[in-house]
């Protein structure tokens, strides 16, 4: 072998050895992250804290805008007018919000093709009713929403709708959830538009195009 060829051989051998060494080291140590390789087993804890559903105070009453000494809103029970006043008792129930000319004129209605008696009990205005006639108290309004909005209710039951504050780990603390009507106005349930929090002011972030 000539001297030049010998040198080329040295270089080739050095190159190949270097590559094998590097690859070997990398494979040996491996690209790691710090997650432990043994499967971790979850052990359910004992006692769970309570989950409180925050129902809006004064639900099922006509709010007067006044508050009592404890700060609770003062509301007038529906039966105050609807049970005693003969004129109301005898007249058939108004079925569409557009027909409300004398009372409840501030009501905005946007809930599909529902009529008033779809939810409100025609004989007892202090109650709601399901589609099969079962009476439902106003505080149990979620049962009424659930009969049509079962998908959302199922998600809600499994903690995937309506948000929550408190603890994800109920063995360490309680949780507060929302009632359907805490976020959704039952007469116009769609979420209103809102002005978002201000956009990011990153360095040199000036989208103009």
């Amino acid at each position: 072998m000539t001297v030049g060829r010998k040198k080329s051989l040295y270089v080739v051998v050095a190159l190949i050895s270097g590559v094998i060494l590097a690859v070997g080291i990398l494979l040996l140590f491996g690209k790691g992250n710090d997650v432990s390789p043994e499967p971790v087993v979850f052990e359910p804890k004992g006692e769970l804290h309570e989950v409180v559903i925050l129902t809006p105070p004064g639900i099922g009453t006509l709010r007067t805008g006044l508050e009592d000494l404890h700060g609770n809103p003062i509301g007038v029970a529906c039966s105050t007018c609807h049970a005693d006043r003969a004129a109301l008792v005898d007249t058939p129930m108004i079925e569409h919000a557009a027909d409300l000319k004398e009372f409840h004129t501030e009501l905005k209605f946007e809930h599909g093709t529902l009529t008033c008696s779809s939810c409100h009990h025609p004989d007892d205005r202090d109650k709601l009713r399901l589609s099969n006639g079962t009476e439902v108290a106003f505080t149990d309004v979620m049962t009424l929403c659930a009969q049509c909005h079962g998908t959302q209710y199922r998600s809600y039951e499994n903690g995937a709708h309506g948000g929550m504050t408190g603890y994800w780990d109920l063995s360490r603390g309680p949780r507060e959830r929302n009632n359907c009507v805490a976020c959704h106005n039952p007469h116009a349930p769609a979420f209103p538009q809102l002005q978002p929090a201000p956009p990011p002011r990153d360095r040199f972030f000036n989208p103009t195009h």
Partner: protein
Amino acid sequence: MSQESEEPTVGGVTRRTAMKALGATLGAAAFARAMVPLQALTEETSVDEFLQKHYKEMTPEELRKVMDRLEKETLERYGAEVEIFDAKPIPGVEYGYALNLSVCVGCRKCAEACHIENNHDRKTNNSYIRVLEMEQGSMDMERGNASYDHPVPAPGKFYMPVQCQQCANPPCVDVCPVQATWKEDDGIVVVDYNWCIGCRYCEAACPYHARRFNWSRPEIAAEEVNPVQAYLSNRIRPKGVVEKCTFCLHRTREGKHPACLEACPTGARVFGNLLDPNSEIRWVLENKRVYILKEELGTQPRFFYYFD
């Protein structure tokens, strides 16, 4: 060059040597003048901070001393009394986070809550969460826009908040040259802010724009500082280091929800323990049409998106 030329000398010193000495002195003086701005640093650094060990190599006593020192520094520099603790992972927990894109309205309350909870720099309105306004019908983020400033939800758009995905195969952890960032047992990828050298390789490596670098010292008014702080998460970070979302580990490792979830007014966020078969996050993964961002990169995120 080896022989000295016959130059006139004064006391054995040639003119050439005298000029060289003058030049060297001037140069040294100019250099000292050039370095004057560094004087400002002596107030900010200490020997303890310089020699501080890596988080994983400190004993609990050493860590407590470090946290006491940090509390003192926060009081000196920001005028706020804080309590820094070391939040340890809960055994048997691996965090997962899901986001319902059908329900997110893009209000950015999550980003705002993150900003407040994590003691971010007020000047830049920094937050670990970036909400993209996307075109309905397209998942192309190039048509997304993070700077929208109009009532939401706008017609024809949907909203996708992006934050650290706490990947199971995180590229940021692989690339850090000093092991300043690593994945903990409960899945959260954390940064030791006192070990990070600020090379920003992790920021280049992250496919989700999850990392933030402190280009200057964070500025927060004393009354706005969140005093409940953890060493690895929301303590006020020094300038020149990288930081990221830690799933609010100072809250979640106590069993509480992260701040972004509590702030969400539409309930689009679901958080919990992936190892608990009865958790809400597991229910979402098993019952909803869930997907992850940039799945083809193999990062295996622990942040899931779904439509209802």
